[in-house]
């Protein structure tokens, strides 16, 4: 079982939350989140991963207090976010819909001032902080431009700047790099790392695995509304490194072999020529099945080596097997 990291003095404590929605079309209920628990400590950068519809956004919105859980509780800096809402929201800010979180008819500076004002801060008290943020986010020259004239990347940076200006210990980011080009994605990634060095706690939901691997120290993987893995990124990579292999063949696989391999292994990539296979063995006897399929057509292995896994492979392996249950990877450790 992937261990749950022990967090001393958790800043965010999610305790057994569940949420279901009524489906209008069929009058049935959909279980979006089921008995999810985790803790996040001060200064941690945690990635929340999961396939579409896994319950990530619902979980994030429940932490923000925007959706009320059916069961369980969430405490932010020891404030119950439903019973002591204002207290909890003093310690939390969020970027939920990226550039849609902004007023497009106001300028960059006016947006920053407006959102700070809504948190009860005067324009004078945030003036210096805004100048510093504009500098840090490379938006100084755009300070007096309307948001609707900015590129999507700049709008995204501004949305993050608004959250940072709130001065809260916890920042939640839902898909911060969604829809950005590669360069801007790198800029945003660098900004997130910089914010993290300031001691803020970041909870980040993303499909962008390189961002998660680069920025986060720990990942929580949610599948079918349940937490299926919760561990340090380094631990997960080490754990799964033993199970991923690259195999080169002397001649291409036959169509039958290709079909057999794809049927047996959920985490597998075969190159277009059919002579190189990247495969993850999820059970201790998978390697024998793999060899049997190659042997059946007398395929000759030229080389076989353990590959460097990344968060994406870990994520795919876990979600492919989890079926909403917490993953057991004890077997994976035994793979030769």
């Amino acid at each position, binding site marked *: 079982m992937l261990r749950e990291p022990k967090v001393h003095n958790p800043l965010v404590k999610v305790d057994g939350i569940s949420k279901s929605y009524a489906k209008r079309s069929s009058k049935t209920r959909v279980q979006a989140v089921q008995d999810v628990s985790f803790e996040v400590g001060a200064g941690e950068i945690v990635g929340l991963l999961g396939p579409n519809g896994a319950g990530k956004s619902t979980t994030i919105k429940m932490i*923000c207090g*925007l*959706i009320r859980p059916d069961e369980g509780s969430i405490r932010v800096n020891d404030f119950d976010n439903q019973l002591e809402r204002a207290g909890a929201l003093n310690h*939390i800010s969020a970027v939920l819909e990226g550039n849609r979180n902004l007023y497009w008819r106001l300028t960059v500076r006016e947006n920053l001032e407006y959102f700070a*004002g809504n948190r*009860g801060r005067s*324009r004078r008290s945030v003036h210096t902080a805004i100048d510093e943020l504009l500098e840090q986010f490379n938006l100084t020259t755009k300070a007096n431009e309307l948001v609707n004239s900015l590129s999507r990347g700049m709008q995204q940076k501004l949305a993050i700047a608004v959250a940072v200006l709130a001065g809260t210990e916890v920042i939640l980011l839902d898909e911060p790099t969604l829809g950005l080009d590669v360069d801007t994605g790198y800029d945003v990634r660098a900004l997130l790392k910089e914010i993290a060095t300031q001691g803020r706690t970041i909870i980040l939901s993303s499909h962008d695995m390189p961002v998660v691997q680069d920025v986060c120290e720990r990942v929580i993987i949610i599948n079918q509304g349940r937490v299926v893995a919760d561990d340090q990124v380094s631990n997960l990579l080490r754990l799964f490194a033993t199970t991923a292999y690259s195999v080169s063949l002397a001649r291409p696989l036959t169509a039958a072999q290709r079909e057999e391999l794809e049927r047996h292994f959920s985490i597998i990539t075969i190159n277009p020529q059919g002579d190189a296979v990247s495969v993850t063995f999820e059970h201790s006897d998978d390697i024998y099945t793999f060899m049997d399929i190659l042997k059946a057509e007398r395929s000759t292995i030229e080389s076989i080596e353990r590959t460097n896994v990344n968060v994406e492979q870990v994520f795919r392996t876990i979600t492919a097997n989890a079926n909403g249950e917490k993953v057991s990877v004890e077997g994976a450790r035994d793979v030769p």
Partner: protein
Amino acid sequence: MYLNVLTANIRKVIIEMVRYLPNTLSIIATFYAIFLMLFWGIRVFGDPVTQAGNIESTIVGVVLWSLATMVMQGMGWQITSEATRGTLEQLYMSPVSAWRILVARIIGCILVEIIVMSIVLFLAMLTAGQWLSFDLVLIPLFGLMLTCMMGVSLMIAGLAIVLKQIDAFLQIVQFAFFGLVSVPVTISPWLELLPIMRASSMVQDVMTEGASWPQFSLEMWALLIANALMYFGLGIALYKRAERRALRLGLLGQY
């Protein structure tokens, strides 16, 4: 703390009014055009004996109707607009309650409306050649009327936060507001229960009949205050109830 929320929202509304001046000017033009139609209607078809009084009542009626429409629908429009843009959830991320932010926003809109309606009122009086009475008693009267209007606005905002797409309802309800500002409250004692009817009657009396403090009894003031506080309190209670429902059903981010 709330003063900063209030300042931020008033500033936002004023920035948008100045930045989108053609929109502001079109509002002035629309209400002036409505007044002109009513004015020429009275001049052409009205009884010459009561014409002067009818024109004065029409001027006050147009101003009150415009104010009622803007304030009572205001929060509903704000909610649907924020939900469409994607900023509604951000408002809910503030430690300051959303209804307080909405009230701050509507106060900003009222200030803009006062500027706009002062221009319409001046143009209307200039066109009619009839000048209305202004008395200090109008300050508490408008204060209480606006309190009542904000209560109704919060109720409509509560509806908007759950249903979101209430644009058609908001269009139709304007006609009900016209009834509230134009039907005399003296017709039936039950009308005292409706929002702003007593206040708009008293405002009409001041501006068209030249009434002042001595003409209004303590009972009238008591009814006015009770009506304003009842609707404001009811507005907050219903908005909070709708908000709880929206949070339970996860409706804030939906449009």
